[in-house]
């Protein structure tokens, strides 16, 4: 009898070892999953996503007439560029989808004829009463801006998001948002301008300059924007060690085509 006790005890101990409770986390992870209305997607580790990774805002400002986004030009000209939210019954998007307006030959539009403006609190309706002295000419929209100067909902929303992301230090995110805006409105120079700024912030002055140059080709008849772009090119050239080139660019910024 005693002989049988030992193996039984050993076996019992071993089996007890097998049964030691070990709860392992099952790594069933899958991203890109569906997200139900109004909820943030919960990842495998059950942590909710940080709020700032939310994709660009869905809602355009509820009162479009009040919204204005001031695009600040870093360290240079004191003139903020201004963009206006489109009026509710907005014209079709700024790019080539509007057959009536040949942007290449658009007459010089009112808003950019002065280097300094009051901050934007008025919407498109007020823009036509802005003191410019130039009658709002052949535009198809109600406001005084040419079709290609209004920033419609999606581009405006994405520029705003990009600004927030850049402000929060998320340059990759800002770059993503701006590239998305670029896909929506490939010929909008303000998008390229902002992207150039992000590239400068990402320590890629060469690309910053190239993007600014591309923006210039679309900025016909917008002298203030052109000036800002030349300023950026000057900055980029400085960063690349091209002092004379930078001086040239600054000159062009003063002249303001």
């Amino acid at each position, binding site marked *: 009898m005693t002989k*049988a006790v030992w193996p*039984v005890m050993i076996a019992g101990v*071993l089996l007890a070892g*097998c049964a030691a409770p*070990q709860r392992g986390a099952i790594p069933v992870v*899958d*991203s890109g999953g569906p997200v139900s209305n109004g909820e943030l997607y919960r990842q495998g580790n059950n942590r909710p996503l940080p709020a700032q990774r939310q994709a660009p805002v869905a809602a355009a400002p509820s009162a479009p007439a009040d919204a204005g986004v001031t695009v600040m030009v870093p360290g240079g000209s004191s003139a903020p560029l201004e963009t206006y939210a489109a009026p509710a019954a907005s014209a079709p998007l700024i790019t080539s989808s509007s057959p009536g307006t040949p942007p290449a030959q658009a007459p010089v539009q009112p808003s950019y004829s002065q280097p300094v403006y009051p901050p934007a609190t008025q919407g498109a309706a007020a823009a036509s009463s802005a003191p410019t002295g130039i009658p709002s000419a052949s535009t198809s929209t109600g406001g005084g801006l040419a079709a290609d100067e209004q920033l419609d909902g999606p581009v405006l929303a994405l520029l705003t998001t990009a600004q927030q992301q850049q402000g929060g230090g998320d340059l990759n995110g800002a770059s993503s948002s701006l590239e998305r805006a670029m896909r929506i409105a*490939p010929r909008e120079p303000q998008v390229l301008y902002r992207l150039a700024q992000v590239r400068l912030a990402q320590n890629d002055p060469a690309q910053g300059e190239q993007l600014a140059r591309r923006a210039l080709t679309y900025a016909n008849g917008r002298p203030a924007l052109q000036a800002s772009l030349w300023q950026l090119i000057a900055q980029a050239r400085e960063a690349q060690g091209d002092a004379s080139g930078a001086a040239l660019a600054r000159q062009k910024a003063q002249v303001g085509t």
Partner: protein
Amino acid sequence: MKRPRSSRSRKRKTFDWRRLSGWAVKLGLVALVALAGVCIYLDAVVQEKFSGKRWTIPAKVYARPLELFNGVKLSRDDFLTELDALGYRREKTVDGPGSVSVGASTVELNTRGFQFYEGVEPARAIRVRFAGGTVSGVSALDGSNLAVARLEPLMIGGIYPAHNEDRILIKLDQAPPHLVDGLVAVEDREFWHHHGVSPKSIARAVWVNATSGQVRQGGSTLTQQLVKNFYLTNERSITRKGTEALMALLLELHYSKQEILEAYLNEVFLGQDGSRAIHGFGLAAQYFFGQPFSELKLHQVALLVGLVKGPSYYNPRRYPERAMARRNLVLDLMAEQGVVSATEAEAAKARPLGITKAGSLTNSSFPAFVDLVKRQLKQDYRDEDLTEEGLRIFTSFDPILQTKAEAAMAEALKRIDGRKGAENVESAMVVTNPETGEVQALLGGRDPRFAGYNRALDAVRQVGSLIKPAVYLTALERPSKYTLTTLIQDEPFSVKGADGQVWRPQNYEHKAHGTIFLYQGLAHSYNLSTARLGLDLGLPEVLKTVERLGVSRALPPYPATLLGAGALTPMEVATMYQTLANGGFNTPLRSIRSVLDANGEPLKRYPFQIEQRFDTGAIYLVQYAMQRVMREGTGRSVYNQIPTSVNLAGKTGTTNDSRDSWFSGFSQDLLAVVWLGRDDNGKTPLTGATGALQVWSNFMRRADPVSLDMPVPDNITQAWVDATTGRGTDPSCPNAVQMPYIRGSEPPAGASCGAPAAPATGGNGNSGSPVMDWVKGWLN
């Protein structure tokens, strides 16, 4: 109580008894130790696989997400095509993610959310209004404003390891209603109560099988099934059954019912798609119904649960009646056990199977483009990363454009096949967005489903006249010497090479055209004038232009290269024309936008890059000449299919004996390159115009391009010139037309003509030069 024994038998009996029991004890000990050892080993196996990384997940490749906003070019029909591909259910009213309600010019839907590189796009209930081929409004159904909404991207393929297993991982809380209860009811009633093996189930199975005379029930628990699928093979033997039972017990010791169930849902084999095994309910939902797992309805759930018992036997695509019978049996069982009410079960039984037609997942639907993606990824990732780590790859692929390209190719080729000598010609096509440099569609051959030789990326073919814009661009970069209206000679000549060989180029019809304007050499693709021009400029200069355009492949430095003796792939041609289309700014062609890892963390971005390679003024002039190709030159047949209000630019290309038929051209928002030819380089009867251009025009007709409208550069000025002589004139004079010039190179303005004087060369245009007649014909 002891019995009287004889001395001898007593001794033997006592001796045997004790010895036997001694042996029995020893054997018992050995068996116990062996069992303990087996147990430890199995335990290690069970835990190691269950707790470590359990499944290798192939990378998933996604198309571009459709962006919805006021003004986007998207027709209602194209939108519905995309929604169908995404598996949206058509309903009368929108009732949750994945449903759409279609009206004449309005579509209401509830999008599914998705996690992109930039963050989460939430699911939304929205209304989209259409006017013509454009979205005229996007609003949220709850009335709030909406600037832009994004659909989830269509999955277009994956990167699979050799063993070809595929899964869409699911979590238990994503299970649709009745799935878990139904599964338990049908496969393992005691699941929540047993400890891995269920003697009750076994007993019941034995009873049912014995009484019915046939094998109708198995006694295996879900845990045992999981063990069998996960760790063991399919052989049916006692030892395997025993191991299975042991491992099931051990599994239950270590892990909770929820964990086991979740693993089961992801592991169970539910079908075979060619060489690919469909494991798990997540992938099965996609494979059979084209919908996400969480959206399945009762009748769909019942079908999948029914498949567990015999995925091949009950395959709904091959044996729909069996599948239907099995599904209804499952529904009955579920009603019987109270999982659903009798009415629910009856309603579900009345529904059709609901299997999608598409038999094969999008694994092989777009092999050419996925091939491009793989090549670009291989530069950054190892094979194991791609096939195992569950990466999510977001691309620029546009399924709508791809479908249009495929349809155009098929239709045009059908017509071409009728021509003698043109049967079974092979083809390739590249479609990009000229403004962003993204590849949107790719065809690697005549049969777009075939994953073989990817001609778009690999067929290196002589480009013929496609090279000519580079010659003219080189010239127009020198405005002091060349303008669009510079007179050049289209006359025969010969030149002796360094090796003594004489090169004597010919025009296509062996006809010389005398004195012509520079742009006409490009518009009509004349060889003689182009070759002369190229030699005047210098071959190295032209080759440098080709390189600046973005072509990295070195072309042979011989005069014949000026007429296209050099060879490129369609993709390289697209790169070259991209720079021409994008105002002289080169953007490397991209197919991938971003990559997420399996946890949804951003891994890598492929940012937009750009570099100015040419003066925009010179590019503007070349684009002008390339537009004349389409208006009056070799590309003019395009306006049989496209409205004349749409400006297009392009170039035909034909090589010797028509071995290659090319067309490369662009609008404001689309660039496409088409190649036709034979893999064995044999002759065809097709020129660039009669072959590739037909495919291109057909595609553009379907794609509704935006008219080309390059912003006029600062250094371009318009000048009035005489259409016959090219000299500066005044708008009041006859034959006066406006042409673009780089500022400073335009001919000086002529004197005003005031009264309508008799034209210098007469109204009927008998000026002695047939070319001038053509020019005047242009005025009419």
